[in-house]
């Protein structure tokens, strides 16, 4: 009985650990460091999860078409340490500096983003603002 309980505990632990591990990928596997990009748009949704917070931002192209971008940023803890609160987000105008995804989708890894009205910059690596 003890063995079964121990096995069940280990299995549950592995299952719980698997989800964040799967989400925590290396930059170079997903994003193209040769394609830096700066975007300006409006935040329409916020994914406040670990290990990376995700912003969803409406960006208007030169032709007027609006594209919703998924922006991977630092984790919520890192952002909160820099003064960001969940309620700061939706509807705010933002400037994002980052790198395009390799798969050609409107996805970007943000090295930093700036809330325009608040004039506050948030960086993914908090030691190098």
């Amino acid at each position, binding site marked *: 009985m003890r063995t079964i309980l121990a096995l069940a505990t280990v299995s549950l632990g592995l299952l719980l650990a698997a989800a964040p591990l799967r989400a925590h990928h*290396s*930059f*170079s*596997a997903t994003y*193209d*460091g*040769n*394609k*830096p*990009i*700066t*975007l*300006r748009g409006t935040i329409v949704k916020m994914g406040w999860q670990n290990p990376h917070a995700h912003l969803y931002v409406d*960006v208007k*192209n*030169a*032709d007027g078409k609006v*594209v919703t*971008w998924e922006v991977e940023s*630092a984790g919520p803890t890192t952002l909160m340490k820099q003064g960001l609160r969940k309620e700061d987000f939706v509807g705010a105008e933002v*400037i994002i*500096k980052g*790198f*395009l995804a390799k798969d*050609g*989708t*409107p996805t970007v*890894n*943000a*090295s*930093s983003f700036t809330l325009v009205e608040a004039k506050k910059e948030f*960086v*993914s*690596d908090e*030691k*190098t603002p």
Partner: protein
Amino acid sequence: MQRVTIALGVALALGAQTVAFAQGRPDFTGTWRISQAKSSRSVVGNTPDIQFPSQLEVKQTASDISVIATSVRQRPLSATYKLDGSKVDVQAPEGITETGQAVLNGSSLVITSRRSFSSPAGDVVVDFKEVWTANGNELTVEKTRTQVGDTPSTQKAVYDKTS
């Protein structure tokens, strides 16, 4: 006698010019590997602000400088710049076009380049300026990235000479 004096004068002048040229001209030839300890964290971490190659193989002659840049999980990219500042095409990954020009400025090498590619937001044009300064077995590269409508950002990486 007068001819000998003139010949000697010309030879001395040419020799002096050659020495001055050799002394004043920086040489970046060598294989340089990025130092994580000496570079700022945002150029080597998981969320780079500006990406730098992990290794640079440089060959410099009197008229040009060729650079093979190796980055993580990418095939090496090579470029040969004329040191007179004329514009050249630079090898870039698929889907990217890049031109660049290089010029020696005192003890530094200045490389400016323009990169273009398409994105879901439309065509993107990004300008880069790199200032290279070598000090013994250490190479410092200061790189500035500018995109139209954006404020420039600058990062510094330090490379150690391995050969």
